[in-house]
């Protein structure tokens, strides 16, 4: 139980307080004991109560579940002291571990560790026990815990029984944004095991160690977590397309259409992690989050798919959480950049899809599409200077109806990692303000010493732009007008405006 204190106590910025029991905490103690008499005094628990109610107490009382909770002050203090002392002995939870900005944990309802972004989840099992205790503590009051805010740290819970996902973040993300991250993590786990399989296992074996089924999946989750810290696709919930001349993208789409066979649901061509084109069954849409899970799978595997053609089951949570699709994945070029993915409902379709692949490749070659894709890739992203607005430094533009976004590559002043991260933090902050569920905004304009920020949500798009700090509001607005015209003009190149159907 010794690690309990560690992460939770890191939420306490002022650790000197930790010897004294704050008064809120006493409240919680009493409400807890009432609760154990199955008489919820206050089912509507304020998150803040938990926060200021010294989180260690939460763990303490919860740990004694399901027995009657003890509010014996002395024994509590003793236990707490033990925790604090043993904390120092715990090498796994080193200070570098605690200093990580963003933690993500996945555990089962029974408190079994499934995944931890940092550190080895095995050594965190007692910490996870505390998490599950907090969850069940709140659950006992017919409520569901969503988040705890402690200083600048946010603890966000996503309860998807039999799994519990917990994020601890000291970054600028909002709770809502962190919840979305947890959803991505959840969907990635579901993509491996499927919801029905998960439920089936845990309906009979509450203690099952899910890591047995997830062996080798860590790299996908790690890649996802790292990407979520820097890639706008997860913030915007949109994918980025490889910029490609419109007619060339049409050729690619037509080539994909060649693969039409029974039970083939989707054909996707990806180059260096960016979507080139998609072809789908008329009656099915490939949901953006599903597509992102798929892209993460391909991007996270440096070499797994390089040898030959791969065939694997994948569960796309939005498409159908209880069944698997079968993915045929192959790279089409020597440089291993361009990847063709077929998703079929037929698990025996492998050899049929091999034939389909040949047809698609023949057609792609006929129109010299692969060369065009390579060329587009080698040109890489456009720079913001291409837009021709000197005071514009960077932007993110998302088209809402097709969930795709575009952004220029990072250039001065966002040319180094530190600045890039700062900019991403600013985007997160702006996005959070605009999409604040309590008070959504349409327009957000702010000026700092370093830059001027503008966020604008209209019916068809979302735009986040950074300008030089010297720009006036009028200049910024007219620059945005010009930018929107520039994007509109290149719509066909920057976005996949049409997805063809089989």
């Amino acid at each position, binding site marked *: 139980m010794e690690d309990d204190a560690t992460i939770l106590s890191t939420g306490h910025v002022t650790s000197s307080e930790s010897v004294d029991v704050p008064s809120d905490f006493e409240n919680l103690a009493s409400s807890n004991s009432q609760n154990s008499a199955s008489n919820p005094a206050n089912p509507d628990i304020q998150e803040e109560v938990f926060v200021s109610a010294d989180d260690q107490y939460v763990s303490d009382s919860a740990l004694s579940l399901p027995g009657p909770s003890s509010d014996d002050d002395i024994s509590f203090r003793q236990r707490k002291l033990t925790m604090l002392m043993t904390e120092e002995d715990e090498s796994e939870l080193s200070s570098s571990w605690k200093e990580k900005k963003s933690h993500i944990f996945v555990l089962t309802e029974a408190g079994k560790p499934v995944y931890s972004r940092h550190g080895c989840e095995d050594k965190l099992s007692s910490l996870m026990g505390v998490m599950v205790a907090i969850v069940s503590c709140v659950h006992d009051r017919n409520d569901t815990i969503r988040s705890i805010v402690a200083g600048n740290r946010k603890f966000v819970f996503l309860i998807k029984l039999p799994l519990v996902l917990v994020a601890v973040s000291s970054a600028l993300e909002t709770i809502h944004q962190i919840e979305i991250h947890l959803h991505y993590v959840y969907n990635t786990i579901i993509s*491996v*095991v499927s919801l*029905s*399989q998960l439920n*089936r*296992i845990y309906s*009979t*074996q509450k*203690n*099952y*160690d899910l890591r*047995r*089924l*997830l*062996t*080798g999946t860590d*790299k996908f989750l790690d890649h996802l977590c790292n990407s979520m810290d820097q890639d706008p696709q997860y913030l915007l919930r949109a994918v980025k397309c490889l910029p490609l001349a419109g007619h060339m993208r049409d050729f690619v789409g037509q080539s994909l259409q060649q693969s039409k066979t029974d039970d083939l649901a989707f054909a996707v061509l990806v180059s260096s992690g960016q979507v080139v084109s998609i072809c789908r069954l008329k009656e099915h849409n490939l949901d953006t989050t599903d597509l992102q899970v798929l892209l993460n*799978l391909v991007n996270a*595997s*440096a*070499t*797994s*798919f390089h*040898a*030959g*053609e*791969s*065939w*694997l*089951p994948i569960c796309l949570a939005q498409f159908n959480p*209880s*069944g*698997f699709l079968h*993915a045929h994945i192959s790279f089409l070029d020597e440089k291993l950049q361009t990847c063709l993915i077929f998703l079929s*409902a037929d*698990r*025996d379709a*492998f*050899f049929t899809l*091999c034939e389909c692949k040949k047809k698609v490749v023949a057609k792609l070659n006929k129109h010299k599409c692969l060369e065009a894709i390579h060329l587009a890739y080698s040109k890489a992203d456009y720079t913001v200077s291409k837009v021709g607005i000197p005071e514009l430094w960077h932007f993110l533009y998302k088209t809402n109806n097709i969930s795709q976004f575009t952004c220029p590559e990072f250039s001065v002043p966002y040319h180094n990692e530190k600045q890039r991260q700062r900019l991403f933090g600013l985007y997160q902050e702006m996005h959070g303000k605009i999409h604040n569920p309590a008070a959504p905004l349409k327009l957000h304009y702010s000026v700092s010493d370093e830059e001027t920020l503008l966020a604008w949500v209209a019916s068809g798009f979302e735009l986040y732009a950074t300008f030089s700090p010297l720009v006036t509001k009028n200049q910024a607005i007219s620059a945005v007008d010009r930018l929107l015209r520039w994007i509109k003009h290149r719509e066909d190149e920057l976005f996949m405006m049409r997805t063809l159907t089989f």
Partner: protein
Amino acid sequence: MASRAPQRPNNASPQGKICQFKLVLLGESAVGKSSLVLRFVKGQFHEYQESTIGAAFLTQTVCLQDTTVKFEIWDTAGQERYHSLAPMYYRGAQAAIVVYDITNQDTFARAKTWVKELQRQASPNIVIALAGNKSDLSNKRMVDHDEAAAYSDENGLLFMETSAKTAMHVNDIFLAIAEKLPKNDAGGTAANRPTSGVDITQGGGSNPQGGCCGRSQ
């Protein structure tokens, strides 16, 4: 250390027979199945081979006297969650290589259960080879060569200790399989493709091994 390698993809002699065989690799994860295949098919070796996801399909052609043998190779992932999919790959296979890691006794035990499963459920005349991989790490050996050889004799398996890293016996084991396979009866063609595997879309009902659920800890 590269063993004799006359079997890089070569042109089928026009007068010779061409046979096509389906071969599947099975074994615990991280024993080196993909490394063996990669060594055989591409002559490459990666110290940090990523784990296979699902299964990978590759082909390679070898020449035996007057016969050209084309292997269609299913390199399966060793992880438990894919176990229930294995029948899809070994059904209709004419050959299987069951791989273990000579430095890990557990993988040898796992290899034996694979052999049993193949003997019970794969086609009756399947040629099974046992490969004790990572033979370059013989200083860390945990599985006795003679023990594995005796086991193979009892069960009528081909047996070799291989090293994907040094290429030792890698081509030999595939060649030995090719030699043992019958070449007269229109040897394995597309007709033997997987037809009735385990339907993973149907949830649990059809999972013969209960492979994905296993036992609780």
